[in-house]
């Protein structure tokens, strides 16, 4: 199977994720879209590792997963806290620094 197809999938996933981050208001969904972008890049890394025949891309993919896990822990905690205090998970509502 042609390795380039994985890259197409990766680009598709990344685009979906990016559009989701920019257009969706729900913080959880935005968060999931960020995860989508991270995983799209993971897919690209792994694919390139396969194409080039070395393990560098796979190693980076592991790092990305670790970072993503940390991000989920901190990010979800923040979102939950904001939701508790403001009764809203909309990212547009959380613009207090502007005012």
């Amino acid at each position, binding site marked *: 199977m042609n390795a380039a197809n994985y890259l197409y999938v990766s680009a598709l996933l990344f685009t979906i994720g*990016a559009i989701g*981050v*920019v*257009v*969706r*208001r729900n913080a959880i969904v*935005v968060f999931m879209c960020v995860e989508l972008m991270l995983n799209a890049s993971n897919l690209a890394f792994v694919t390139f590792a396969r194409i080039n025949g070395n393990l560098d891309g796979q190693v980076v993919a592991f790092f990305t997963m670790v970072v993503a896990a940390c991000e989920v822990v901190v990010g979800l905690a923040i979102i939950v806290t904001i939701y508790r205090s403001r009764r809203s998970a909309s*990212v*547009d509502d*959380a*613009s*207090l*620094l*502007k*005012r």
Partner: protein
Amino acid sequence: MTSQSLVYLVALPLFGSALLLLGGKRTNRWGHLFATAISASAFGVGLYQFSVMLGQPDSQRALTQKLFSWISVGTFQVDAGLMVDQLSICFVLLITGVGTLIHIYSIAYMSHDLDRRRFFAYLNFFIAAMLLLVLGDSYLNLYVGWEGVGLASYLLIGFWNQKPTYATAAKKAFVANRVGDMGLSLAIMIAFATLGTVSFAGVKEHAGQASTGALTAIGIMLLVAATGKSAQFPLQAWLGDAMAGPTPVSALIHAATMVTAGVYLITRSNFIFDAAPTAQLAVAIIGAITLLFGAVIGMAKDDIKKALAASTMSQIGYMVLGAGLGPAGYAFAIMHLLTHGFFKAGMFLGAGSVMHGMNDEVNMRRFGGLRKFMPITFATFGLGYLAIIGVPPFAGFYSKDKIIEVAFNAGGIKGITLGAAALLGAAITAFYMTRVVILTFAGNKRWDEKAHPHESPILMWAPMVLLAVGSVASGFLFTRGDALRNWLAPVVEPMPVHEAELMSPAVVSILALALVVVGVGLAIIKYFLSEVPVVAPTDVTVFTRAARRDLMQDDFNEAVFMRPGQAITRGLVKTDVAVIDGAVRAVARLARGSGNVLRTTQTGFVRSYAMWIFLGAVGLVAAIWMVTL
């Protein structure tokens, strides 16, 4: 020889001043007595030093004391050191002696003043600073005292600073003195640059190696310093206004001691002036100009203190002239300084006594006939008067005639000009001093009903009597066997007396006496034999009008220095506001403007930030792609 007790001369009054100033109201009750005792004990220390010096041979009389190492930078070493030699001790005794008498006088004179303690604190501070001035063993130490007396003078002229004019007078004195001080600091810098040392001994030792040009520059700068402190032409304008201070201050600072600091400086620097004839001639010329200048002003003043101030200016002119005549004149300059210290301080105290009895009136046209009411004041003032106009055997006769004689014998056209100026000054002195005495003590009563003239208390007249004794006897004592001249010889190295003299002492004395008689006679005709109007006549010649305005000295200073100075200041302020502030404000405006523009991008929406980040990333990738392609 070293001495361990010199420091007390300065430390005692300094301690007294600090105690009275820091002690505050608690010292109100005994502060004046304490300050007087301190001053008297400083006089005692001075007498002790004098006795120590008398017991030494001529060449070893100078006593020194090193206090501490003051400045130590590489090869430049200045110790805070004190030195008393034959010249300094004259000043020490004059300052502490006359100073103590004036302290005593002030106890009574200032008894009604609420701030008497502060007054005495300042007086003690002045004594300390003046002693430091004459005791310092280097120009730098002298400079500290020099500034100290300037400060004391400022504080005391403006002692009654609730009156704005008095405060202004104090400021004026300070500013004029600053101009002179600049001269002194420049002289010190030039001395250091060319000679590498600023101590008197060092400068004296190395003066021979310096070029005449450098020595002339130092000499001229020292002269500038002397003109500022000693109210000499062209920095003389402050002395008349300085009479705003209480009368004891005028007697101590602006007659007997501080204003003679310039003469001390020139005499102390004799080794510089002797090696720089141009500077020396400039000193003599300045002295001659000032002695006439002051005398002319003195003729027109109706304010008794201002008349005496003009007279002080003129008499210091004599001293500066004497000091400018080189080795032949130094001793006589100092002698005149000492005798003047007695008679002028005495006359100022007399003027204070008159004011004390006349409700602080100073206009002599409102006096008259006080002889009967204030016999002691009249007698002491009269003795001072006889001393200043130079009637034998009073003090001024010995000192002033000697200066005139030395001036004539300076040789050539210079000698004749300077001598003639000094002789003319003697005649004018006789005229204006006679005028002062007649207007105050003789003639009809011209005061109004409210005044009740009375003799002053003993605390006031006792110092006047002592000073009068000095005015009578000092000249005779100083000249007996050339006592003062021989005493000062190791410091100023007098020249052997000229063989070919233009004028012998007898001729000078007869000439001077004749002119004095003329001056006195004119004054008697004008003020004793004819009626004195209570209000000064206005239909007077342009010369009188000029003399009343202090010969336009203020007008000159204002036109030449003050107004252009103000114009420059205004111009600088405008430049500052427009150019420098303008540039700073433009930068601030730029920052604020660009901030305003950029602020619009801060929407507060996370999604728009995400959009920007995304676009930025895309742009970055695109850029890298373009470059690598």
